[in-house]
């Protein structure tokens, strides 16, 4: 009974669930049970011991008898060990007699009284236990369950919730509505789904939770007497309902197994992924991609990555519902990102869906590797073409010099001219001819085609042509070598940076990759550089020798020396001078002093390259000066540029004219009016007339004339509208007519003044023209040499331009500004035609930077060019002048003007 009582009490303590309570409960049971067991064992052990019976049973009832019996027992003990005390048999007999003499009545009486007491206690305990079992039996069971829990889980499962419904709400990006699922089943839901379990408590007063064994969420009361718990699904779980007692859970038997379906990242496929594109061979890289997602795409990006940096460009933003999307992106080779890198660039497309629940929801395609053109490759190709043409010329000249037979010479001629023609017409991917080379090739083709076979002229022209081309090759290769050298210096910098990174533990892998890339391009560039004449060959030998040292150090994992060698190479290539300097001799610290040795640089034996360069410079200057003159003429002829002398001529009497006009205008009423009404037109006429008077007062002839015309238009409009609107009373028709008459008179005076100005300006422009005519003639005449350097067509164009300028000069002398302007424009067209053979400034700059790129547009059309800011500015200027000269009239006049101005912006 004691044990039972202890268990019940302990269960009630343990039910609080805290560890301390559980330990206390278990301790109580243990202590009670142990005590009972010990008492029982003790009693069993001492049952036959006379001393204990005398002491515990007899002595409380009859102390004298107990004492006497004890003495008898002691005597018996002495006789068994010491014969002097007597016979043991007698002593034993004495003991028997003594024990028999103990009175039993008192003892029995006392025993009965104790038994009654104990029976009462047991009954009392039984009653109490029964009452507890009846009143809090479940709590006792729960307590026992909690007390026996292992790792926070009770061994016996219990019913806690009568589940009335389970629902699942998938994440928003999936656009799936909430749906019910069966409790106790095995279902699959998207990651991010909220699972809600709803039900009625089976036993009140217990905290309920929904748990997966690791985490738990509490059930909360709803308004309808139920409880509900929401579970955010992040991984596959087995959800259970449990009652929580402190830190211990007593689970419910049935569970629901929910598999979490992860949201797949978008699948992106890039056409030709994994391949390598050599940028030098294409002008544009087409990136065709297709992205797909199981629920919907939100964004598609293009990612460009080099060893050093990454750039992300958004290609498309979507609504998050579209499940697949295809697209294309054209990456130009002159894209700023690609233009700045010298190492391979990786490109891929990435797409993400609308799922914000996970950190990285980007789907990626494979990489496409973009290999920048090997530095020097275009230049090497270009020089190679020139070398081929040159070698044909040399062979032809050699045959001519050695007086080979006519058939051989004819064949040489055909081969050489064919090579020349092909070099001019061939379409090249990576480069185009610099202006001077283009001019020379044209001139060579022209001259060599014209010379008669076998004549003395053939030899001299051929010789001149060969040496001229030789000098141009020398010039071009030297210039290209310098540009390529600087580009290679950047690659050497990459090697140095890579080595620095590789020597650090953190960036070793990146540094190695950078080294690999740079050391792949650098030797190629060095080999290309080696084809670019003496300077290129010289610098290439430096590249080759330094690369040997770099590889040696790298093989020994000595990145410090890799870096140092690369830094040396970079510094050397940034100073692309011949190894032995430009001094022609080794003059100092040599054995033989001056006259010994010579630099690797070879002097040109023809000044053709310098002549062409000078001609082009002069042409450019001439063209710019002529354009300035033309624009001046255009301004003056169109009377947009008032002249001080004209102002002086207008100064007398203009105040009176202005006062007359002002009086006429001020006679009109100044009333507020609705737009587009007769009254508003009248107001406009008044204001324009007053403005014209002001301009007359200030001697702004052109402006005054324009305003007078505008005022007349407004007067006519006001009269017309007044007739339509029948609002005669508000319109001062008489005043309007008087004003119109005055305006006509003023317009006549102003037109005369403008004409005087034009003539005066024409006279001044005529004074300037002869200088330009002379310059063009002189240039054409100077280049009229019988050599093969300047194309005949260019000379003809120059002479024709000079002729047109002569005509323009004559026209100006005859005060015919329009004719002069026409002739000037034709001369300018010819000069522009000559200049059109030059590459645009951008292309020229790219070329100078060693980045010969294919041309994408031509400036030769008559439509406003988009790529030439100067031409666009000229176009705008001309249209504006036209608009200022010929004011659009009529109802749509202002609209036309606005449109034209918008167009020009």
């Amino acid at each position, binding site marked *: 009974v004691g044990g039972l009582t202890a268990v019940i009490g302990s269960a009630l303590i343990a039910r609080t669930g805290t560890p301390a309570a559980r330990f206390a409960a278990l301790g109580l049971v243990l202590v009670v049970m142990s005590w009972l067991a010990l008492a029982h064992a003790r009693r069993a052990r001492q049952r036959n011991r006379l001393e204990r019976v005398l002491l515990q049973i007899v002595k409380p009832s009859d102390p004298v008898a107990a004492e006497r019996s004890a003495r008898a027992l002691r005597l018996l003990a002495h006789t068994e060990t010491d014969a002097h005390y007597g016979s043991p048999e007698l002593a034993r007999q004495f003991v028997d007699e003594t024990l028999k003499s103990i009175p039993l009545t008192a003892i029995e009486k006392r025993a009965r009284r104790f038994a009654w007491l104990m029976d009462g206690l047991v009954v009392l305990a039984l009653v109490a236990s029964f009452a507890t079992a009846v009143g809090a039996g479940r709590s006792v069971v729960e307590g026992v369950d909690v007390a026996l829990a292992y790792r926070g889980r009770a061994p016996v499962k219990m019913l806690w919730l009568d589940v009335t419904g389970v629902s699942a709400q998938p994440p928003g990006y999936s656009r799936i509505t909430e749906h019910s699922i069966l409790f106790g089943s095995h279902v699959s839901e998207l990651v991010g789904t909220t699972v809600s379990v709803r039900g009625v408590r089976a036993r009140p007063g217990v905290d309920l939770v929904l748990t997966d064994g690791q985490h738990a969420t509490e059930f909360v009361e709803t308004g309808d007497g139920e409880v509900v718990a929401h579970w955010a699904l992040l991984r596959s779980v087995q959800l259970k309902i449990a009652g929580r007692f402190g830190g211990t859970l007593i689970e419910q038997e049935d569970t629901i197994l929910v598999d979490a379906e992860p949201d797949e990242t978008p699948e992106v496929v890039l056409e030709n992924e994994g391949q390598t594109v050599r940028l030098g061979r294409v002008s544009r890289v087409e990136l065709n991609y297709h992205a797909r997602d199981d629920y919907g795409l939100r964004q598609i990006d293009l990612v460009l990555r080099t060893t050093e940096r990454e750039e992300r460009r958004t290609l498309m933003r979507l609504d998050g519902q579209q499940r697949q999307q295809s697209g294309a992106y054209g990456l130009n080779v002159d894209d700023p990102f690609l233009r700045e890198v010298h190492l391979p660039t990786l490109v891929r497309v990435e797409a993400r869906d609308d799922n914000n629940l996970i950190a990285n929801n980007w789907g990626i395609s494979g990489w496409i590797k973009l290999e920048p053109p090997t530095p020097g490759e275009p230049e090497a190709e270009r020089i190679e073409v020139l070398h081929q043409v040159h070698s044909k010329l*040399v062979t032809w000249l050699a045959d001519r010099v050695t007086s080979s037979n006519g058939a051989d010479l004819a064949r040489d001629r055909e081969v050489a001219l064919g090579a020349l023609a092909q070099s001019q017409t061939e379409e090249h991917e990576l480069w185009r001819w610099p202006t001077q080379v283009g001019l020379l090739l044209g001139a060579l083709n022209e001259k060599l085609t014209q010379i008669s076979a076998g004549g003395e002229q053939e030899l001299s022209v051929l010789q001149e042509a060969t040496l001229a081309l030789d000098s141009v090759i020398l010039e071009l290769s030297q210039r290209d070598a310098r540009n390529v050298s600087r580009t290679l210096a950047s690659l050497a910098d990459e090697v140095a940076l890579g080595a620095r990174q590789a020597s650090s533990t953190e960036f070793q892998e990146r540094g190695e990759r950078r080294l690999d890339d740079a050391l792949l391009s650098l030797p190629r560039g060095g080999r290309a550089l080696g084809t670019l004449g003496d300077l290129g060959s010289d610098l290439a030998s430096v590249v080759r020798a330094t690369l040997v040292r770099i590889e040696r150090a790298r093989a020994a994992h000595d990145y410090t020396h890799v870096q140092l*060698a690369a830094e040396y190479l970079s510094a050397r290539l940034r100073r692309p001078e011949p190894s*032995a300097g430009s001094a022609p001799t080794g003059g100092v610290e040599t054995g033989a002093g001056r006259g010994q040795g010579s630099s690797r640089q070879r002097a040109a034996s023809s000044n053709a390259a310098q002549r062409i360069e000078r001609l082009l410079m002069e042409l450019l200057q001439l063209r710019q000066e002529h354009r300035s003159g033309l624009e001046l003429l255009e301004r003056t002829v169109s009377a947009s540029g008032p002249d001080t002398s004209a102002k002086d001529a207008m100064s007398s009497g203009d105040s009176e004219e202005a006062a007359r006009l002002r009086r006429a205008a001020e006679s009109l009423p100044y009333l507020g009016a609705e737009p587009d009404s007769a009254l508003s037109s009248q107001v406009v006429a008044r204001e324009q007339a007053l403005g014209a008077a002001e301009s007359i007062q200030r001697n702004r002839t052109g402006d005054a004339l324009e305003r007078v015309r505008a005022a007349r238009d407004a007067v006519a409009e006001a009269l017309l509208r007044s007739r339509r609107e029948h609002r005669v009373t508000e319109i001062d028709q008489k005043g309007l007519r008087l004003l119109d008459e005055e305006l006509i008179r003023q317009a006549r005076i102003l037109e005369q003044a403008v004409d005087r100005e034009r003539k005066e300006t024409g006279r001044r422009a005529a004074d300037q023209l002869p200088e330009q005519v002379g310059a063009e003639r002189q240039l054409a005449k100077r280049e009229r040499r019988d050599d093969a350097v300047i194309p005949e067509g260019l000379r003809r164009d120059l002479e024709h331009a000079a002729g047109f300028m002569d005509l323009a000069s004559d026209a100006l002398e005859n005060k015919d500004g329009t004719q002069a302007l026409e002739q000037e424009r034709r001369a300018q067209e010819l000069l522009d035609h000559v200049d059109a053979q030059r590459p645009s400034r951008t292309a020229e700059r790219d070329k100078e930077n060693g980045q010969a790129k294919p041309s994408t547009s031509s400036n030769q059309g008559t439509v406003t060019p988009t790529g030439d800011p100067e031409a666009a500015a000229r176009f705008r200027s001309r249209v504006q002048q036209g608009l200022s000269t010929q004011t659009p009239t009529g109802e749509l006049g202002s609209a036309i003007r606005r449109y034209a101005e918008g167009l020009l912006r």
Partner: protein
Amino acid sequence: MKYHLFGSRSWLRVVFLAALGLALFASATWLLHRQPLQLPARSRISAAFFANPERIRSRIDSLDLEGAQDLLQQFRPESIEATRLRARLALYRADCDEARAILGPDSNLTGSARELSTVAEACARSMSAASVVTDRARSLWLRLQDDADAVWAPLVMDTAAQARAFVAGKLGVSPDTPLRIELVMDHASLSALTGLPIEAAETTGTVAVARFGRVTLLSPRSFKQGYPWQDTLAHEITHLLVTAATSDNAPLWLQEALAKHLENAWRAPRPHDGVPDQHEIARTAWLQGKSVGFERLGASIALLPNPEAAGIAYAEVYDFLDVVIRECGWNAIRLLLREIRDLGGERTDSALQSVTGYSIQEWTRRWRHKFFEHERAVQAPREEMATAQYLDTSRRLRLAELFDSVSRYDAVEEVTSGVIERTRVTELRNLAGHARLHRGSAPEALGVLGEASALNSMQGEWLALRGRALAELGRVAEAKVHWNWALAYSPSEERVACEGYLPSRGEAANNPGSALCSAATTSARSASEPLAE
């Protein structure tokens, strides 16, 4: 008691003090002449006392690098001066990495240490991971910036050893002085290793510099036709040995004069030795008022404004010393060097006067007096040829080169035929000679190649072609001499290395298996097909 220093027993005190002074003097002398490393540990303190910066610097300048190292070990390692000296010593040992590491970043340094740091940094970059060839038996060390030069490294070593032995004998210094030679690819590296401004190197066409105990030499590969590198090497070795002999106290004029005198004296005479005549150059410059003068030499001849001034300066110092040597002999020069070492560079005049009996001014008067001993007309600077003729020759030369490049030797002969007999342009004769050799006409080739005296400049290619022509005529011994001379100009050039032939263009060389020829042919082939992988 009154104390008397010179009292009745003052003689005893005097004797005692004298004995003490004598003992101290003897100890100091003994310590001074004793190698510090041999000192027992307890004598280190006294050794450190003698290891002062001047003494260490003097050891370094005298190229006694081991001695300097020993002294440095006794010097206070924490002092700034010790750092500077250790870096300097590392540079003299050509250990640029160590010098760079010792000096650290430039920003912390000032003055000479900053200059040392700049040189160390640039040197470490330029020669990073360069290969080294050593000949311990002959105490020679050669570092190659371009591995392609390794093939003729033995030639460099032999030349250095021969020149050192001869010059050391002439100057009275040890013939075993270790030599460190750096062979570099370009002026930029030459400048980096020596601290010579690159603009100065390019302006004056400097090809070698002796500084920091090393000879830095531009590879003949840098020049199209090479240059007389053997004489240049001997010239620079002379500088090093004069520096060692005088503890770097010799004035610049004496340095350059001795180097100029000895640069080709170490070997047998060759064509174009003595061309141009240094005496004539000096005389003409003096009479035309273009004399540079000793006092205007500056820090280096390489820093003069142009090659012409450099040439005049060389001629003047050479001719001046020539007068001294003719009258006093080489023994006087050896004595002079010793005097300068002991007295210092600023007392060179005193040294010269004590050795020869005349001061520099007196010697200068005597030297200039020689200008008028043989009255000759002042020669105007020789024009190679009239401008028009030069232009014509230039065009012919280029055409001949172009024909040669496409193997049209008949056209080469044709285009050179009118001028070959009278031209002094070596390249033109080379082309004409090669065309005839290709045709198999060695006698004609020998004729158009002409004699050395008919050339405006000596070239390895000309010597090689002449050797080939002589060999084809059966005069093999003469041919071998020519080929050896040719190597003294441009050993890396294919025609020189292959004894007048061009195997890369299909010509069968006599020595195709030789390392020099093989390397030169490979190099020529890769140059003609640079884009091949």
